[in-house]
């Protein structure tokens, strides 16, 4: 119990400090050499807090959920364990964050796609039907950007795979680095199919096979099945993993988008807790007036 209370206390302090966005740093190779796993790759295993990856575009339409206050969520957050070490928290102030390409953060929308998402947003509050209920309130797996980064992450490495576990919605991404190909094109997944490879000390993760049912953010409530992402994980010191994400979705955008963020070391002794979503949520019974069990 003591540990849980510590999580909440530290997370509250972090949440109160707003982190100003800064420009991308130059790409000089790091001098520091990371610890290594037995197979010779940088050892990134441990608990991490992800920061800065929000897809916050310039000139965004108003979030239909903004009336629900600072969490932007129409329901209370139960667990709040996104903690980081003091060193990591300090380092975050100088880290690149958010959309770094295009530099002005105006996303290269196709006009018809921008119109479609504005139309979508106009039906969300009150929701016109199930599909307009905000994704996290439906417990939809978060995709690569739709999660709640107040929850921590854990990295486990094995020969042949790199495992990224989200506390949020208990997602587990087993990223194979054994040279296997992507799944066949007719298999479509909420979290996509991730294949990794090491380029020097950087893990490069190529993800395809997405379905079109996850969201990028509260104001970008969908993407298409042709979404293709490339993530780059580079450990730059014991407390920081540099995280870069390139998004290509030619049905939405005319050019790739690059996002920068950070995995910052979490406090020692923290553990992933269970995140039960559908088991506890009353959102859909409240909206539709009935639950999943006859007695509800």
């Amino acid at each position, binding site marked *: *119990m*003591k*540990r*849980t209370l510590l999580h909440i206390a530290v997370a509250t302090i972090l949440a109160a400090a707003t982190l100003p966005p800064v420009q991308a740093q130059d790409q000089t190779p790091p001098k520091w050499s990371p610890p290594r796993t*037995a197979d010779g790759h940088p050892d990134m*295993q441990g608990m991490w807090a992800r920061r800065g990856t929000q897809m916050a575009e310039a000139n965004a339409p108003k979030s239909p959920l903004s009336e629900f206050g600072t969490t932007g969520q*129409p*329901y209370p957050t139960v667990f709040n364990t996104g903690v980081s070490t003091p060193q990591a928290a300090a380092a975050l102030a100088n880290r690149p964050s958010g959309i770094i390409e295009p530099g002005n953060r105006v996303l290269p929308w196709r006009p018809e796609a921008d119109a479609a998402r504005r139309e979508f947003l106009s039906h969300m*509050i*009150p*929701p*016109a*039907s*199930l599909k307009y*209920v*905000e994704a996290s*309130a*439906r*417990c*939809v*797996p978060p995709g690569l950007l739709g999660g709640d980064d107040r929850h921590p992450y854990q990295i*486990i490495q*094995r020969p042949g795979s790199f*495992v990224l*576990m989200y506390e949020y*919605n*208990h*997602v*587990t991404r*087993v990223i*194979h680095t054994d040279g*296997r*190909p992507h*799944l066949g094109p007719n*298999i479509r*997944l*909420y*979290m996509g199919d991730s294949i990794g490879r090491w380029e020097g000390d950087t893990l490069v993760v190529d993800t395809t096979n997405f379905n079109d*049912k996850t969201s990028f953010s509260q104001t970008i409530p969908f993407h298409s099945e042709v979404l293709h992402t490339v993530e780059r994980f580079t450990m730059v010191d014991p407390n920081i993993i540099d995280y870069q994400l390139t998004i290509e979705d030619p049905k939405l955008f005319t050019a790739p988008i690059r996002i920068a963020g950070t995995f910052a070391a979490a406090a020692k002794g923290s*553990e*992933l807790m*269970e995140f*039960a*979503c*559908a*088991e506890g949520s009353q*959102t*859909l019974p*409240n*909206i*539709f*007036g*009935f639950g*999943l*069990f*006859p007695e509800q």
Partner: protein
Amino acid sequence: MALGFVLGTFLLAIPVWAQGPARAIPRTPDGKPDLNGVWQVLNAAAWDLEDHNASLRMPAGQSVVESGEIPYRPAALAKKKENFQRREASDPVEAACYMPGVPRATYMPFPFEIIQNPKLITMSYEFGHARRSIFTDGTPHPDGFPDFWMGDSRGRWEGDTLVVDVTNLDERTWLDHAGNHHSDALHVLERYTLTDPDHILYEATLEDPKVFTRPWKISMPLYRRLEKNVKILEYECVQYIQEQKYGNAKPVVGAKP
């Protein structure tokens, strides 16, 4: 002579693995049995742990309970029978896609992956992308934790067997689709023994004095999934059940999420 020749031919035809001593099990660098991989049961325990006949969308199965039947207290047996009658509407896994709990997650008819490192063994289940962390770092169950759908698991090695102590299990899970149930006092002791490179003997002892007259045990093999490039895919049960129940429903006027 002729008979001996025929027998000899048969012997030669038997695969090498069936003739020699048991194949050595794989081990991690720290010398423990290496449980990493994708595993799945081949039985009908998810529908009913005990002996049962087939019915629509339910295969028949022999009991996986060592003593054959679950030793219920009388009131708990009555509740089990009531659960059975209303199982289509009330089984938390089938009606609402809730996490199956332990041990039910193990014998769902879906694969799961074991991700092993020295201090933490993670089990990642395809059904509903449920997951549990088994801490093997010597830590005890924390004081004051709430109950979890997948419980709190602390593991240790007894020789070559992984022994997992599971507490803090939410009383709302069922043990199978037949309505076998437990209370918040359930304590599960699991044993995972790699008997050869491709089989784990899975045993679980269930203790719950509010519901059962004595501890009882289930056992079954887990089979390694050997397909080339096999991986855990998605069975997003919650999304499918929402679509079925609410896909054509109209929101209540004035409702806010």
